């Protein structure tokens, strides 16, 4: 009996060790190969200039259009998703506690939406745009990405808010707070670290996705000056450069990938720092 348990213990420890090893190795391999191929061709010029004529044939210029475009688009989409997502997630967990079935239905729908591939959002956005005769633009792309990101953000926030004990809700209400006060002053604070992680996760999904913006945001060599102009993005820029037969351009694709990874890394670190500052008031029940 004891031996069996010891064997079980060992077995799962070894299993866990190897899973960790595989994941860590894969991650390191991906990051290193991107850095190895990309770092040598990163240059100041590349980060600060838009493509010149012939850029995709190996001539002068950079990917500033795609860097700024991606930041515009995913920041816009993250902000819009946040404005819709936070109230929805709070509403589900504070106002609708009484209606467990309804909340579970909403969760189910959001999970379905989460599972829909982003190319479908792109196709949907494209269909709507053609119907209304709207052309590819920063605005159309941002809206499509927002639709794609909302379920991700809401469900990520929801999972955090769900873990708040009922006792805290009861305490807040019995102090005479309204549901809204309970949501925004108590639940929001208790969950701030987790909520900011949800926002970051969404930003990462938004900036890394290519399929939803393929037909909706377009591509351009310029930095858009108004929301109705098309916009370039890093994933598409990588795609175009990588499709080039010229090795030099392909190397720049890896350099662009490095930029994308660094942006995600930096937001990740920033959000950690941010959430750490607010961690201290969280009650560990």
């Amino acid at each position: 009996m004891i031996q069996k348990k010891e064997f079980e213990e060992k077995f799962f420890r070894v299993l866990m060790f190897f899973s960790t090893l595989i994941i860590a190795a894969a991650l390191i391999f991906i990051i290193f190969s991107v850095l190895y191929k990309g770092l040598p061709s990163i240059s100041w010029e590349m980060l600060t200039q838009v493509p010149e004529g012939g850029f995709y044939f190996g001539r002068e210029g950079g990917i500033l259009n795609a860097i700024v475009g991606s930041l515009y688009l995913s920041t816009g989409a993250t902000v819009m998703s946040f404005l819709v997502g936070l109230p929805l997630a709070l509403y589900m967990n504070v106002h609708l506690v009484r209606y467990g079935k309804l909340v579970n239905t909403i969760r189910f729908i959001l999970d379905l939406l989460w599972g829909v591939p982003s190319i479908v959002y792109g196709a949907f956005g494209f269909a709507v745009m053609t119907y209304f005769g709207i052309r590819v633009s920063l605005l159309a792309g941002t809206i499509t990405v927002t639709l794609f990101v909302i379920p991700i953000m809401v469900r990520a926030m929801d999972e955090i808010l769900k873990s708040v004990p009922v006792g805290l809700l009861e305490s807040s209400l019995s102090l005479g707070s309204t549901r809204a006060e309970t949501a925004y002053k108590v639940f929001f604070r208790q969950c701030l670290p987790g909520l900011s992680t949800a926002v970051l996760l969404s930003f990462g999904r938004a900036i890394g996705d290519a399929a939803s913006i393929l037909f909706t945001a377009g591509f351009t060599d310029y930095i858009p000056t108004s929301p109705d102009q098309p916009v370039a993005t890093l994933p598409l820029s990588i795609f175009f450069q990588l499709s080039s037969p010229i090795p030099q351009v392909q190397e720049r694709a890896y350099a662009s990938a490095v930029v994308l990874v660094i942006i995600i890394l930096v937001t990740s670190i920033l959000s950690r720092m941010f959430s750490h500052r607010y961690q201290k008031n969280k009650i560990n029940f």
Partner: protein
Amino acid sequence: MMDKFKIVIENLNLQFGNQPILKNICASIPENKITVIMGPSGCGKTTLMKSLNRLTDLNPDAKVTGSIFIDGQDILHTSENITLIRKKMGLLAQRPYPLPMNIYNNIAYGLRISGRRKKRYLDKRVEHYLRQVSLWDEVKDRLKEPAGRLSIGQQQRLCLARGLAVGPDIILADEPTSALDPISSQAIEGKFNELKKNYTIVLVTHILRQAKRLADHVIFMYMGEVVEQGPASEIFGNPRQEMTKSYLNGIFY
């Protein structure tokens, strides 16, 4: 002298799903007195306290029927805003749930949502309520620290202070001294005796001696029913029901 009743419960029934938890509760709670609810674990004391504050609204499975009159108004069937009704009562839950903010703001929270914002006023009130629950000396130098860092007993007192700060008429306290040492318990008991001049207090406790020290009025419950209720002297001195008698003598089955 006839007591004036602050809370009158009539035929209160509560089910979680199909399971009856409170059965035909009828009880009256006198104003400016301490009413102690006693009974074995699981008999429904906490549930009864929560019904008084309509926190049972939050439970998807709860079905409540009957009436609870507070100051003559039936809070189960009223169009009045539930938030205003809850403000009349300070509920001290069985487990303390401090708010996710610092100690100072835990107390100031209730004042702020009632529209008081002046710093000088808030400072004075926060100190006042913390002194009332004899917590001030322990925390006066760490008001800006998160409330979650306090010990459970300190959290319990903080939650009592927080409840008082909202300015209720009624204090519902569910085992308020369960995590306190005898000395702090006595301090809180003394506080309750003072507070009853201005508040109607409903207290759940498992400590018989505490009940005897504090109670003016006693409600004894068993398996979701009120077995016996009345003035403390009667219940403790001359209980009519066998069940009450054996519980008080500690030979409960």
